[in-house]
């Protein structure tokens, strides 16, 4: 057992004594070797002759070595299984001193939270039955109201288990200050007795830019060691963290960091979603082996990019692998009012500096005021514009009062304009003084001034004041009381550098210096970019963020696993400035403020670095132990089941050795046949390559039915459909034909070959069909179909004047290859096929009905006309509704005329279906006569006789 546990440190046995049985395996080996597998037994009559024969067999009498090995393996598996192997048997937790569990429940622990939970649960199991004091505490900071619950004890093992199960990671970095305070509270409970301390550490050190976290950690560890013997549980897994969005030019990216360089590539996906949870992007992420950092580019179109709300790593779920995005991440549309400048693009042009500063964070549009407002920019910049047209001023004023933000920069032009207007320049915060001032010139005694202060009400309040900004020239504000404006940035002498004034729902901001570096260093300093970025967030976050009194209620809060929770009711709204600070228990990470434009507070802020706990330094006096990556697992069943299956294999092999399995050679032909059959079956046959017949065509092929061409005009189609339906009913009643209900045909798609008759209403606005459709019609006519074209203009048509429908028909027919036509001759088969008719009347009797000319008859289609063209509106005459009420009036003639219309319809269908037979019948007398003249004797009927 000793060496075995050395090989598998996580494996232990409940009944290790049984493992001694493994020593007997070699004996078993020889035993098995002595007992050969039973031979196949066979009754044999000639045994008499065999009795004396010596068996000098070449087949070994022993079982083959692999069978022996298999059987030994079975035995070994059974023995090991019976010994009750347990993987990851919990630490026995021996001793009598009090036990203290210190759990780092900060977000780095969340990714493998189950490790902590399992460790605690198995410790609780191990402590069961031991009469020991058990204490447990967490280290993450919590809101004050929850502080008491963070240190619990003395607990029973059951209570510890329950506590472990109820424990959840927090979205905060570990705060050893809070842990230290709890240890201080714990100390009196222990009453000086040294405790056995299990520190379930998260293994990382989260440092903020200007914090010195080492000391609380060390004090915490020191305090722990003072209280007793400490074991630090530590996970070998790296902690991944997703660091805030960074925008560079048009590209947006996130940074994925790991506390450890990995041996293998780590691959996962990053899901980017919008505020409503819609997935915007899924980016594959790979952290290459050996690297600790990788940048994840987020390439999204502009409009989608501004919808980004969360970016979430699809692995190692924790508050640290989620980044929330808000307005500061987005690209704002900014309008820069164009100035006619001839030094565009040069370093003398202020716009150059603005573009340089803003391009990474915003889309800069150029144009005039009206144009920019039209394009719905969030911010308009007026760079050194003094005089404006009144119309532009009015536009801008309205725009600002509706919520626009106007950013103005001073400059020579503005200084000029102030002079003109005597200080009351429109669209500026406060009153400006004429002339401005300049420092450090030859005639000035004042030194250039530094920027020294951002005021509290400014959006820059949390920014550090850049020290490198020297202002040489500025425009001054009239220092009147009740100025109505705010100073956002002040120079050393208290004069404002940036002023702002709310105007309606909007805001006017004025930089009192020019955008060119001749007035100040501001345009070329990094502080300029920072300030502009803050201003850029204003259009999105609204002006409320400027109000130091304004507070933002939590909307959705991130939990330790990185999921969203509803905020606890105890959470109070917080100010904007606090939202710019790292998350605290009072300000947990999440979305705050207006649901339409929430402000994001991330678990990992921009200045945060996450490094592995300097374990070596701690290891000096704190022993470390890895987490049990798996809960205790009894493996007996696994071993026994494996042994069972091996035994099954063994019995099959034994049968095979005895020759009791079917001879494989006999199976070969069967196998070949099966193989050949499957090959044949898998070869696609020719028939399967034909396109499938669609349901409509199938139905039409199975049941004869009339069809009409879908004209696209619903009223026309309705009448046509009703007409054909009624005609179908009449056919059903009066003839042997029992047509199914008619269908509408799409010439472009449907297979026409299955229809005997097509009814086509052409009106003046019938759009000419495509060449393909016309080709299909030609094929239909050549294939024996009857096309009825109805222009419904018989009542208005005359020989001298074309109707619009007639024109349309002519245009269409000019593209079809149709046979020569003639007016319906007297005695045509159309007047004889069922009823005796002289004409084919419809709703009208005017116009001419054209059929294929008799001169062209021989040959094609057995002489049956493939086309009937008329303007008689037959379908209109046939159309009756379900109650036999006609849709359309018949005009003069009434019921009798409708009856004739039905008769002509029936005749047409009969010609379509039985045309050649009807023609033969028509000419039967002539045929008989001809036969008689040929001297073949009188024949009553000659079906195969020639046609006239």
């Amino acid at each position, binding site marked *: 057992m000793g060496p075995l546990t050395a090989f598998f440190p996580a494996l232990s046995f409940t009944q290790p004594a049984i493992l001694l049985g493994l020593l007997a395996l070699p004996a078993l080996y020889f035993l098995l070797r002595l007992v050969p597998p*039973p031979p196949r037994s*066979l*009754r*044999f*009559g*000639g045994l008499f*002759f*065999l009795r004396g*024969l010596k*068996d000098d067999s070449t087949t070994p009498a022993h079982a083959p070595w692999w069978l022996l090995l298999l059987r030994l393996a079975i035995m070994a598996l059974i023995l090991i299984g019976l010994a009750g192997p347990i993987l990851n048997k919990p630490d026995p937790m021996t001793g009598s001193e009090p036990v203290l569990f210190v759990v780092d429940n900060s977000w780095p622990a969340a990714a493998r939270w189950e490790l902590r939970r399992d460790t605690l649960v198995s410790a609780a199991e191990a402590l069961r039955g031991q009469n020991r004091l058990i204490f447990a505490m967490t280290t993450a900071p919590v809101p004050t109201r929850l502080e008491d619950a963070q240190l619990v004890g003395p607990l029973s093992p059951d209570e510890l288990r329950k506590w472990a199960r109820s424990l959840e990671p927090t979205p905060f970095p570990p705060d050893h200050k809070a842990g230290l305070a709890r240890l201080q509270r714990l100390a009196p409970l222990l009453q000086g007795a040294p405790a056995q301390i299990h520190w379930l550490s998260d293994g990382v050190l989260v440092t903020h830019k200007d914090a010195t976290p080492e000391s609380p950690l060390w004090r915490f560890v020191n305090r722990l060691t003072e209280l007793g013997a400490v074991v630090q549980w530590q996970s070998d897994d790296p902690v991944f963290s997703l660091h805030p969005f960074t925008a560079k030019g048009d590209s947006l990216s996130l940074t994925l960091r790991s506390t450890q360089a990995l041996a293998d590539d780590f691959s996962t996906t990053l899901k980017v979603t919008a505020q409503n949870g819609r997935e915007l992007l899924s980016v594959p992420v790979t952290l290459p082996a050996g690297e600790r950092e990788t940048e994840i580019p987020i390439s999204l179109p502009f409009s989608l990019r501004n919808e980004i709300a969360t970016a979430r790593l699809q692995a190692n779920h924790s508050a640290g692998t989620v980044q929330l995005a808000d307005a500061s991440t987005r690209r704002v549309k900014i309008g820069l009012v164009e100035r006619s400048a001839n030094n565009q693009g040069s370093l003398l042009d202020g716009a150059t500096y603005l573009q340089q500063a803003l391009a990474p964070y915003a889309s800069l549009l150029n144009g005039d005021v009206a144009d920019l407002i039209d394009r719905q920019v969030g911010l308009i910049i007026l760079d050194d514009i003094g005089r404006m047209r009144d119309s532009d001023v009015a536009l801008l004023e309205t725009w600002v009062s509706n919520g626009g933000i106007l950013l103005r920069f001073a400059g020579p032009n503005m200084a000029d304009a102030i002079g003109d207007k005597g200080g009351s320049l429109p669209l500026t915060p406060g009153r400006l003084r004429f002339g401005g001032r300049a420092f450090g010139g030859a005639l000035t005694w004042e030194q250039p001034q530094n920027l020294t202060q951002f005021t509290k009400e400014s959006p820059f309040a949390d920014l550090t004041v850049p020290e490198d900004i020297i202002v040489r020239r500025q425009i001054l504000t009239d220092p009147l009381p009740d100025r109505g404006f705010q100073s956002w940035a002040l120079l050393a002498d208290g004069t404002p550098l940036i002023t702002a004034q709310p105007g309606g729902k909007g805001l006017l901001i004025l930089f009192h210096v020019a955008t060119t570096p001749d007035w100040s260093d501001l345009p070329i300093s990094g502080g300029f970019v920072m300030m502009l970025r803050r201003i850029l967030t204003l259009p999105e976050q609204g002006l409320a963020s400027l109000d130091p009194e304004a507070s933002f209620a939590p909307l959705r809060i991130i939990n330790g696993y990185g999921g969203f929770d509803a905020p606890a009711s105890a959470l109070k709204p917080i100010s904007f400035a606090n939202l710019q600070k790292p998350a605290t228990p009072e300000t947990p990470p999440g979305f705050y403020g207006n649901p339409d434009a929430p402000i994001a507070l991330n678990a990992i802020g921009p200045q945060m670095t996450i490094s592995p706990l300097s374990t070596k330094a701690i290891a000096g006096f704190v022993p470390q132990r890895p987490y049990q990556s798996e809960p205790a697992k009894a493996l007996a069943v696994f071993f026994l089941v494996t042994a069972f299956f091996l035994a099954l294999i063994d019995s099959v092999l034994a049968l095979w050795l005895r020759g009791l399995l079917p001879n494989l050679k006999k199976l070969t032909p069967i196998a070949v046949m099966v193989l050949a059959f499957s090959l044949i079956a898998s070869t696609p046959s020719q028939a399967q390559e034909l396109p499938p017949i669609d349901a409509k065509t199938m139905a039409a092929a199975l049941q004869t039915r009339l069809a009409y061409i879908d004209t696209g005009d619903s009223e026309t189609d309705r009448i046509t459909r009703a007409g054909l339906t009624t005609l179908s009913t009449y056919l059903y009643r009066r003839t042997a034909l029992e047509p199914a209900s008619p269908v509408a045909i799409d010439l472009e798609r449907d297979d026409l070959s299955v229809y005997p008759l097509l009814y086509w209403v052409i009106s003046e606005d019938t759009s000419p069909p495509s060449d393909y459709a016309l080709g299909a019609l030609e094929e239909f006519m050549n294939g024996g179909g009857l096309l009825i074209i109805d222009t419904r203009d018989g009542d208005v048509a005359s020989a001298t004047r074309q109707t619009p429908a007639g024109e349309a028909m002519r245009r269409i027919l000019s593209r079809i290859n149709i046979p020569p036509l003639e007016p319906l001759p007297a005695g045509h088969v159309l007047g004889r096929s069922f009823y005796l008719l002289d004409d084919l009347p419809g709703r009208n009797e005017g116009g001419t009905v054209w059929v294929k000319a008799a001169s062209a008859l021989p040959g094609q289609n057995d002489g049956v006309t493939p086309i009937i063209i008329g303007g008689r509106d037959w379908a209109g005459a046939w159309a009756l509704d379900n109650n036999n009420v006609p849709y359309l009036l018949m005009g003069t003639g009434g019921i009798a005329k409708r009856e004739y219309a039905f008769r002509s319809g029936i005749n047409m269908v009969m010609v379509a279906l039985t045309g050649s037979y009807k023609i033969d019948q028509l000419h039967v007398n002539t045929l008989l006569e001809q036969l008689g003249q040929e001297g073949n004797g009188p024949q009553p009927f000659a079906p195969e006789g020639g046609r006239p």
Partner: protein
Amino acid sequence: MAATSSIKSSQQALNLQARGEQEAARLPALLLAAEKIAGTLMLGLHGRHRAGPGETFWQYRPYDVSDDRKMIDWRQSARSPSRLYIRQTEWESADIVYIWTACGNGFDFHYNDALPEKQQRAELIAAALAILLNRAGERIGLLDEKHGGPPLSGRDAPQRFVTRLIQREENTGKSPPPLPQTRQKVQAVYLGDFYQPLDRLADWIRKGSAQGIRGTLMQICDPSEEDFPFEGRLAFYQSPDEAPLVFGNAAASRERYQQRFAAHRQTLAEICRRHGWRFLHHRTSSPSLEALLALHNILAGER
């Protein structure tokens, strides 16, 4: 005690009856098959047409010095002056042909299901032979210790013979087949495989020959017994209660097996030849008519 023994005996009786019924069911089939074969062999070689012990006059033959003087027919000799005649009668005493077939103990074996068991083939040949001999007027007897009985003759002789034949019990032990216990010179036909030690068989044949029995041995073998077509690791047994013989590689022993088999047959044939007995062999894969014809020819040649 009495109760159990009575139950036992009644059970035995029941078994016996069941077996009897089974065999009775076999009887018509066997008879029919035998009739069929015998029918194809209606050779009609009847009548001895030569002198021998009998009652019917056959011929007068001039006296020869080697003849016994008692045999001189004085009445006939008196009719001719200087000649002595001997009156000979036609040899018409009916032969008794005893038939023995082996039963059980390895004889009821066939390797290929398509072929009959050796025992079935032997019974068929025996029955057919009995029919033939009966038609030829011979008396037929079954050589069996229990169901043997006296030789049979008459119309129903074949049926009674076959009845006895199928009633007989396992007889192929270690000892050779029985010999007819008669002073007469009789024919005996032995159908079996004779897989027995040769010295015992030789003793037996010598003994029979000394008794004046004209024996015919027909060795009936399964083809597998002659060819030994087996391969691989095999445990051979004759009856399930015997310890099997295990051969690791049966094919390796084939040649020596065949040699032993052939030597046994050859020696047996030689022994028979030496003692005036006839030796035939038959494979169950050959038609039974072939064996019957051979037997018949031998027996007919004797007459």
